[in-house]
């Protein structure tokens, strides 16, 4: 039983760490501000989620009772991560950051900055 438990916990820990690593690589190598926004905000939710589930499983067995505190952390993370991403995106529009040369529909970013509909002048 403890063997299976150890395998599950270490699998989740390694998976979480790999996802976070890929998120960090994305942050370093992607071409512009908005594409860089994607990798870390998303990877952090799933990566941290995996690590927290591993912690939840381990401590539930270790203490002999259900331990759900990590579940709360996961929930708050899922609620706050999109808000942070949204605020960063808004800041990017505000500063008119440089977009990748071949970004499709580039002019929509100007419309978004002015809160206009796409067909409005």
């Amino acid at each position, binding site marked *: 039983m403890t063997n299976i438990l150890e395998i599950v916990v270490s699998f989740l820990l390694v998976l979480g760490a790999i996802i976070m690593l890929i998120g960090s690589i994305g942050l370093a190598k992607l071409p512009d501000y908005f594409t860089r926004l*994607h990798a870390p905000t998303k*990877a952090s939710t799933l990566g941290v989620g995996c690590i927290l589930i591993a912690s939840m499983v381990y401590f539930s067995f270790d203490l002999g009772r259900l331990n759900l505190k990590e579940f709360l952390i996961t929930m708050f993370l899922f609620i706050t991560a999109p808000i942070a991403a*949204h605020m960063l995106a808004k800041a990017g529009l505000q500063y008119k950051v440089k977009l*990748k040369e071949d970004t499709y529909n580039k002019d*929509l970013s100007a419309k*978004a900055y002015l809160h206009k509909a796409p067909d409005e002048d």
Partner: protein
Amino acid sequence: MSKKSKFVWFPTPYHSLLLWLVWQILHEFSRGHMVLGAVFAIVIPWIVAPLSEKEPVAKNPLKVLLYLLRLVQDIIVSNFEVAKRVLQSNRHLKPAFIAVPITISEPLPLTIFTSSVSLTPGTCSVELSDDKQWLYVHVLHLEDEQKLIAQIKQRYEAPIKEIFQC
């Protein structure tokens, strides 16, 4: 005003339940904290309920659960797609802005919708138009604009509209 004269024990039952549950999880279900949590779960909504605006309420908890499960599934599946994109060369990347026409206008369902779009990797909601008819979304790698818009509308907007019936 009739609103003030009528006394309600649980003005926001879901919030009360959530408050009690979170309190229990934080204090590991000991008996004393069950009582203390219950007191908080009853008293705090009395104080807070008159301050909050009326929001549409989810009618069917089962549908909410199904929606959350689908969201988690989408997050996991598309996370691996983004991971693949990140590890490939930047030259194959086709980032794009798209404008998604939306029909939700209530604040709470709209927040849940835009958050869902942001949480699923590959798409990130950037801004709303002033008339709340358009949501601007940044896409990490765009294959087919119309298909993606249809997918967002069908997978996230339709169930949220159904849950809140707005």
